[in-house]
């Protein structure tokens, strides 16, 4: 059984790995292999041909951010269980940023959908936004809400409350 953990920060990768290990122990799972990845591209390379039981995704990452990875991997594996790992401040900073965006909600959704379609198919168009996180930030949208609307199974908050995080993860481990 494989669990993939994706985070660009070694520290947080170590923390979420420990959470997964504790969750597996709690469920009596002894054959769990945890694969660590440093960003979305690394994850998509390593997960190719595999069917992990669970994936954890950091949101802010270089090369390929967590929202883009979510959208792309959900397209490749519709049945995947994917937990987003998010800093508590993410939504707050974004809400403050959104106060000067004058695009209405319907238009924002439409513009975001264009980017999501491109990312799903793996298309990169020069001169356009090719990152879901960048699109969300540019439109002043809530990244966690977008994650939920695009297939995130759940959200785990950083800094980790280990007990809460383990409880959340055990719900998604078979």
């Amino acid at each position, binding site marked *: 059984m494989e669990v993939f953990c994706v985070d*660009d*920060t*070694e*520290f*947080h990768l170590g923390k979420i790995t420990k959470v997964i290990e504790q969750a597996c122990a709690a469920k009596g799972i002894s054959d769990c292999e945890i694969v660590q990845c440093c960003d979305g591209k690394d994850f998509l390379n390593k997960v190719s041909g595999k069917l992990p039981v669970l994936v954890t995704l950091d949101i*802010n990452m*270089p090369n390929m951010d967590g929202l883009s990875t979510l959208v792309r991997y959900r397209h490749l594996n519709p049945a995947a269980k994917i937990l987003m790992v998010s800093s508590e*401040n993410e939504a707050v*900073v*974004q809400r*403050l*940023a959104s*106060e*000067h*965006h*004058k*695009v209405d909600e319907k*238009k924002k959704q439409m*513009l*975001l959908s*264009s*980017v999501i379609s491109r990312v799903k198919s793996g298309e990169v168009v020069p*001169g*356009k*936004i090719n990152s879901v996180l*960048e*699109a969300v*930030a*540019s*439109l002043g949208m809530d990244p966690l809400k977008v994650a939920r609307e695009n297939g995130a199974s759940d959200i785990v908050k950083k800094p980790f409350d280990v007990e809460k995080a383990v409880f959340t993860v055990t719900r998604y481990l078979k």
Partner: protein
Amino acid sequence: MEKGSVEEFIGYFDKNDLENRFLQIENALTQNKEEKKELVTAMFRTIHSLKGTTAILKIELLNKFLHQYEDALGVISKNINSLVGVKKLEVFDFFLQGLDLVERVSLALFEDQEMVIKNNKELFNFYIKVIVGARELVMHQDQYFEFVDIDEDLF
């Protein structure tokens, strides 16, 4: 926290490089140059990594500050596609002061790993001033930067 951890962080923290990069960002943002996005994204990643490093090395005081600093820088990086100018140039003084603060706090911690910042009055006042500056920037972004409606062709 150990002295070795702070020493490691000091070796990792290149203040001169970061100052030069902020000056490039100031230039790029005030003149709305094309390279603004690349410069700001790279800086955001550097600060994000520094923050992560302080977490790994368990330097809590710096980690807490760098969270605030990253949020302030996030105002620029998250809005880079609609940010076309700078209304108050002193906003860059804030970012440079933040780097001064990181240097001064890390040197103080190197001398005394158990340092309680409240006992060092001048440094504490500086710490508070910069933290308040970070929050002010996040809460009142429109006062510091010129934003326009997003270019829909980017999507």
